[in-house]
């Protein structure tokens, strides 16, 4: 067993885990944060994207022990319960950026990472290139791209990063 402690969505967490535990398993099964999904489980589809120290990573290909001492943010950490949604979440709602919704948490975490790196004024081709590691099997990309462009702009006026 290995002792891990990390900050998840602002909360300090300490657990004893099997070192084999993937970060996505740790989040879903230990912490019951089931918003982060397991899609392909081979680091291709992006349903498991979370932020590790503020950067988008694939939680299915990261050992939880490697996140020890670091900070993790999941889709649950974007907005407090009952509070208004994060502007990127709101943009996905407004622009119908989801169909079945399975890829959505990963899409949103990636989208916010894109804004952090590329700014608030995103051209469609930039969004499409940056989304290469997130797959939507409903193929609803048109609205996902529109959502991200709008969410990026809305984030500029928001306190939520």
């Amino acid at each position, binding site marked *: 067993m*290995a002792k891990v402690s990390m900050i998840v969505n602002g909360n300090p967490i300490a657990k004893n885990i*099997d*070192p*084999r535990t*993937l970060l996505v398993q740790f989040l879903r099964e230990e912490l019951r944060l089931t918003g982060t999904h397991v899609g392909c*489980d*081979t*680091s*291709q589809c*992006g349903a498991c*994207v979370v932020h*590790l120290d503020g*950067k*988008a*990573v*694939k939680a299915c*290909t*990261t*050992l939880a*022990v*490697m996140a*020890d*001492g670091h900070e993790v943010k999941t889709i649950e950490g974007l907005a407090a319960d009952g509070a208004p949604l994060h502007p990127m979440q709101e943009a996905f709602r407004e622009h119908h950026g989801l169909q079945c919704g399975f890829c959505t948490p990963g899409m949103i975490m*990636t989208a916010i*990472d*894109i804004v952090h*790196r590329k700014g608030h004024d995103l051209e469609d081709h930039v969004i499409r290139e*940056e989304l*290469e*590691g*997130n797959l939507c099997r409903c193929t609803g990309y048109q609205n996902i791209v529109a959502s991200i462009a709008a969410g990026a702009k809305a984030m500029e006026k928001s306190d939520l990063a």
Partner: protein
Amino acid sequence: MYEFKYHRPSTVRQAANLLAKHEDAKLIAGGHTLVPVMKQRLAAPSDIIDLSHIEGVDGIEIKGRALVIGALAKHADVASSATVAEAIPALAELAALIGDPAVRHRGTIGGSLANNDPTADYPAAVMAMGATIVTNKRKLKPEEFFQGLFTTALEPDEIITKVSFPLPKKAAYQKFRNQASRYALVGVFVARLPSGVRVTVTGAGSDGVFRVEAFEEALKKRFSPKALDGINVSPDGLNSDLHGSAEYRAHLIGVLAKRAVEAANNRA
């Protein structure tokens, strides 16, 4: 994934000692090759030695006439580094073509080189520019370091610490990606060095990265895409799979080499 013991050294020396002590140990840096193969049970190391908490091994700096990159530098660091963009823009562009943004936030240059996947990108750059691979024990030239499919000259307790790229006069990388995996179906790196021209190919060779000497000779005389007209690469020894035949890859090598020369020349 099979069980393993987890170790977290805080220095390269500690990591090397752990490697020497545990015969079936594996190093992990970003884990974006090792974790997938462990999940598939294709690798079952007894011990995992996590390098990711070792400090001071991920720097990017110019030293004299060389760009020196720490082994733990992530692909995203190399892709977005102003130092790399200024010194060897082709290398920044290459790093930006590895995997996808989330993968680039984890994968490291040292990990990529130590794995020596025959379709990885960095080996092409290292061999084309004659970079020096620095380990905890010695310095290796690419011809010594790369020993074929997933094989390097690294000894059981040897760890890459940095890579030193001599600055080329001109360089460019062209990659034809497998659309699903993002690995190179064929990647060609062309470098014009003070000592001559080097053309390297990744993705195509069944033994990993290799040089195309016929192209190098022609480009040495005239550094122009036209210099490669009529020179064909033999499909012998090239990979052939459902993504492309050996003949197709041989053809792509010529096409991509011309594009790389043109891109290098267009870089002012």
